[in-house]
């Protein structure tokens, strides 16, 4: 259908129009809520990037979203829809937390932090392994199983935090605080060490790991044999078999990579900010990852841009609470839903119109 459209319209104009539509509808919602959409927009923008501390928060939120966005995107490349980012991030955090809690008395930071990071990836991968295996070997649809695994992760965490890992003598279900050797350094502390002062924010070194993850995913998908296998399975599973690729292995492997990426949220949240195990630290990042991956069209560059946008919305959204009577940060959830709707479910809606316009107004000599 889009074969006759030039690439810049297909990957540039149409996604932009879809996002514009999402914001337009969100504006209508603000209007219905009795506020001025342009006021709301300016509060969002200023709240997100208007001052130094806000930028730190925006980048901190974006870090989580890069991880979950990449997780969804990698699975997408293999034709798998991993809705389980939320659960994998939760269990990944459990891994990081368990590593920190059990080793923070003995190991120095330079050993402990990498171990905890690896644990978060491994636990996240393990939580995605079974849905992947069931999809590959038993034909159980990965969408349904990952949804179920989200709930299982949530129940498991409640059980563990309330009955097992809770710090004795404390009301809320939280573990003890990790020793400082397990803390991922804050960026403002790191930069203060070399004489640069920036505002305090939860932004920490995990953002560098997110950057590494982006490069890793790009290389994996576009420059390795494995990535080729993943894309082939995603495009045509039976063709992959004829090409000597084992789709079962690829499906299980891809789900594990996807789960590990989602699991890294635990690094940013637990090692970076909370410094303890607690409930609900994933706060919907797994689901926002779906919006991020769709908006970024599965490409790391797109995902970084989409993460920055959503990170800004998360941070700007908190300002809405202070500035308005009628609207709260929940507006961001609405925007998120609209983005998933327009750039995901209704992605093909604009194509016929774009095609007609292009055919009428195409420049002379244009393709």
């Amino acid at each position: 259908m889009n074969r006759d459209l030039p690439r810049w319209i297909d990957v540039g104009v149409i996604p932009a129009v879809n996002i514009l539509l999402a914001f337009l509808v969100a504006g209508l919602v603000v209007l219905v809520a009795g506020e001025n959409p342009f006021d709301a927009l300016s509060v969002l923008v200023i709240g997100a990037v208007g001052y130094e501390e806000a930028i730190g928060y925006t980048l901190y939120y974006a870090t989580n979203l890069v991880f979950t966005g990449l997780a969804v995107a990698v699975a997408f490349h293999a034709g798998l829809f991993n809705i389980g980012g939320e659960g994998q991030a939760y269990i990944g955090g459990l891994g990081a937390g368990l590593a920190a809690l059990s080793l923070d008395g003995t190991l120095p930071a330079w050993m402990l932090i990498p171990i905890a990071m690896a644990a978060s990836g491994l636990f996240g991968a393990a939580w995605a392994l079974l849905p992947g295996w069931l999809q590959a070997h038993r034909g159980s649809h990965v969408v349904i199983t990952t949804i179920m695994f989200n709930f299982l992760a949530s129940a498991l965490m409640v059980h563990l935090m309330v009955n097992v890992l809770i710090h004795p003598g404390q009301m809320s279900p939280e573990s003890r605080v990790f020793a400082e050797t397990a803390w991922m350094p804050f960026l403002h502390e790191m930069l203060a060490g070399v004489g640069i002062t920036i505002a305090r924010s939860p932004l920490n070194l995990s953002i560098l790991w997110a950057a590494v993850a982006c490069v890793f995913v790009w290389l994996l998908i576009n420059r390795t044999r494995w990535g080729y296998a993943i894309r082939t399975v995603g495009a045509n599973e039976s063709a992959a078999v004829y090409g000597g690729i084992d789709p079962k292995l690829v499906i299980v492997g891809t789900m594990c990579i996807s789960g590990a990426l989602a699991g890294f949220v635990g690094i940013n949240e637990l090692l970076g900010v909370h410094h303890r195990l607690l409930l609900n630290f994933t706060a919907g990042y797994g689901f926002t990852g779906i919006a991020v991956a769709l908006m970024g069209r599965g490409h790391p560059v797109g995902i970084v841009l989409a993460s920055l946008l959503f990170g800004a919305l998360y941070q700007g959204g908190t300002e809405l609470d202070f500035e308005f009577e009628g609207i709260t940060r929940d507006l961001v959830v609405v925007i998120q839903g609209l983005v998933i709707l327009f750039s995901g479910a209704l992605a093909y809606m604009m194509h016929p119109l774009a095609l007609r316009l292009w055919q009428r107004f195409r420049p002379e000599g244009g393709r």
Partner: protein
Amino acid sequence: MTDTWLLAVLTLDATIRVAAPLILAAMAGLFSERSGIVDIGLEGKMLAGAFAAAATAAVTGSAWLGLAVAIAVSSSLALLHGLACITYRGNQVVSGVAINVLVAGLTVVLGIAWFDQGGQTPPLSQAARFAPIKLPFADALHDIPWLGDLYHELISGHNLLVYVALAAVPATWWVVYRTRFGLRLRAVGETPAAVDTAGVSVELLRYRAVLITGMLCGIAGAYLSIGQSAGFVRDMTAGKGYIALAALIFGKWRPVPALLACLLFGFLDAVATRLQGIELPGIGQAPVALIQALPYALTVILLAGFIGKAVAPKAIGVPYVKER
């Protein structure tokens, strides 16, 4: 002995209360999924229905108007899902997720804007709700041992929508297996091309199916906010839409087994609630969270094919492209 009996009856009574919205949502999902449209959005449609019902009932004071608006709102979301999946052939899972996320945000934003109570709707008076219905002779027969309790607690005394939920199962069975529409519905979920060849519009059929899904989800939502409770609270469905989906799969996309799955899941929930904070011999604190997770675990095990095989409608999730 009679205490144990009463406890058992009361647990079953709680089972029915918990299961009613699951049954409605599972029957809703059955129509959509048997027509070949995946519906992850049961949760969102229910939540929208719950909000619409409570908001309308709070403003107008009428439970019936609340129910009507809940059905209308949930149906329009279902048509949006249809637009994305049937007309524009978008990804059906993505569309469902979009609806869930959108509704989760929208109900809170609108709730705060309209009622200014942190996302809740104002508490409803008795008249604005579906009150429990006392079946004839419930009090007179209460004194009869065993059966009196059974009749008084378990069968009588539910609100109207519980009975609607229970009636929805035979109705669904009849429509799906005994009507022309049902035959076509099942066919379009397996081989849409055959239905198309027979001169029946695949698109129209699927639109009708998702519309029924929307209506039933609306009733399920209304049950939550103006039947079971007296108002809407944020995230009121709390995963019930997904449990209903699990029950539908557990029941292998058939009405009666899906009903039994809903009752099983409702029973697990009722037991877990009853065990809250109780010390069990040998185990200590009852692991309530784990009991509540059992429906999900059971569904995964079923999907894995270890207790029978759940085979989905063949054409599910595949947009139908008419050959040119």
